[in-house]
């Protein structure tokens, strides 16, 4: 290309000059067009569907019904609000445990030691494992009759638990699965933060006579604030949208009592089991707004803290 530019002026030179002048948009355009066509248009469509009574087939005639879908969904204490609750319980609970456990493991891995490589491999494996396969794996382990979990409980004399098949134990069990799979992610992120810290503040606190716990709580943790927030945001977004392990273990509607039906599962069921596109879109719009609101609060607080 460059040799062409230095030779005689030609169509190619003109084109090249033009391309170089507008390279900013030329480079960004394909990705932006993709995002526009495959994301912005569908999102707009979802927004439109949420104010219609579209049902059965998207092609079928539908009527604009204004905000009545929103009214219907927001007053639905049977499926919608419990699903909101479960989404929050699942995300909040799993995320809290992942952060604490992840911080403990990251601190253990912080200083170099022999065999470090193997520990790092071990924590990487759950992270890359296919979530559906992970769901199936835990389904066998937590099987009430033949599962290893109840076998272990019987060794230490605790009665067998229903785990995934229990109405009240299913959600906590799935939170455990989420914690198993995604704590390594939190560990890696926090560890990256820890390794980038300079030793000096810690050293200074040590000389001032602070003990390990004080140094962690008053020195290391405040320095890690930015990393912790990024971790919470990234992991939180994914946890809110958890679908694979829930659907793989409990199937449609989040089980017979809807015991693990989060917003994502609920919206998926409305869309593809009931074909109730109007209501499904309304739930999705509300879900999306909810995620944005949470992210806004987290990043807004970050900016407020920084200034």
């Amino acid at each position, binding site marked *: 290309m460059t040799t062409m530019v*230095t030779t005689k002026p030609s169509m190619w030179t003109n084109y090249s000059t033009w391309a170089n002048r507008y390279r900013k948009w030329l480079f960004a355009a*394909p990705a932006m067009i993709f995002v526009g066509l495959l994301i912005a248009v569908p999102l707009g*469509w979802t927004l439109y569907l949420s104010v219609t009574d579209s049902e059965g087939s998207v092609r079928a005639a539908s009527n604009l019904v204004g905000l009545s879908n929103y009214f219907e969904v927001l007053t639905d204490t049977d499926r919608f609000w419990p699903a909101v609750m479960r989404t929050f319980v699942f995300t909040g609970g799993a995320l809290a445990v992942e952060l604490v456990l992840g911080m403990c493991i990251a601190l253990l891995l912080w200083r170099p030691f022999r065999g470090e490589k193997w520990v790092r491999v071990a924590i990487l494996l759950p992270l890359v494992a296919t*979530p*559906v396969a992970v769901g199936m794996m835990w*389904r066998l382990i937590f099987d009430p009759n033949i599962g290893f979990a109840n076998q272990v409980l019987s060794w230490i004399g605790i009665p067998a638990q229903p785990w995934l098949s229990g109405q009240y134990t299913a959600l906590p069990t799935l939170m455990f699965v989420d914690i198993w799979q995604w704590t*390594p992610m939190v560990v890696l992120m926090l560890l990256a933060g820890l390794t980038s810290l300079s030793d000096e503040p810690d050293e200074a606190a040590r000389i001032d006579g602070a003990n390990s716990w004080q140094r962690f709580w008053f020195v290391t943790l405040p320095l890690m604030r930015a990393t912790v927030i990024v971790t919470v945001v990234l992991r939180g977004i994914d946890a809110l949208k958890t679908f694979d392990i829930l659907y793989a273990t409990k199937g449609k509607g989040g089980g017979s009592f809807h015991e693990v039906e989060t917003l994502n599962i609920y*919206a998926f069921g409305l869309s593809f089991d009931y074909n109730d596109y109007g209501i499904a879109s309304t739930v999705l719009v509300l879900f999306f707004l909810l995620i944005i609101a949470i992210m806004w609060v987290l990043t807004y607080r970050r900016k407020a803290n920084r200034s």
Partner: protein
Amino acid sequence: MTTTLPTRSAAKTPTPVASAPRRRKPRAYKTFRVVALTLTVLLFIAPLAWMLIASLKSNVDIFDASKTLFFTPTLDNYDNVLSRNNYLIFIFNSFWVALLSTLFSLLIGVPAAYAMSRFAMHRSALVVLMARIIPGVSLLVPWYFIFANMRMVGGFGVLILSHMFVALPLIVYIMISYFDSTPLELEEQAQVDGLTHIGAFLRITLPLSVPGLATAGILSFIFSWNNFMFALVLSGANTKTLPVAIFNFVSYASIDWGSLMAAAVVVTVPIMVIALFTQKYIVSGLTAGATKG
């Protein structure tokens, strides 16, 4: 977890603060650390080992508590999965969908990330990154309708496009932070030597970005390979990817646990092998942005 705190603070007691020039942790802490690390490794590995063990058992042995660890290994489950259930086709499907969606996303995502990094196009970057936040379900209904109209549902094209929705924002996110940390000087030097802007990008920056490209590519391959929801709705009988095939395994009346675990091993092992060899890249990709604040 709860034992961390007492032992960590106990660690300081025998350490005279001023008189220890090199910090030497007492034996108690070292022991604790070894025990805690061993437990951590066990916690994360044991379930995977269990899956592997169960995949080597006959279904009779899986139901027999006395044969938890001692049993006669058999490869029948794998035979069942690979030859009788046509998993080879699903492996093939998963592989091509993941590979092509990754390549196409790199093709359009890397230049975009470059432009967004060099020209500080924060708003455009934000638009692409929004895709990470959007619940995938909200795109599925419109997609299904659009692609059904174009008679594409059940084909590979729609699967690749939908997986690009996952791959593209990831690649843009990783590559922006990679380009942000690549110095401008070499590019400017190349321009002094007569390369155009685009030439400098293609001949200087891109070859220097191979580690970043590897990171983004590997991660996007893994995420596409693992993706379940899009293929669940958009794939046809012949284009099913592995996660969907595994899910369909259990919709029969009784679960063939041995074969199910064999299928789970078949889908997870390739990705774990990739992860073992590319650990460095995966970690740097997953933690991109963790330290930026």
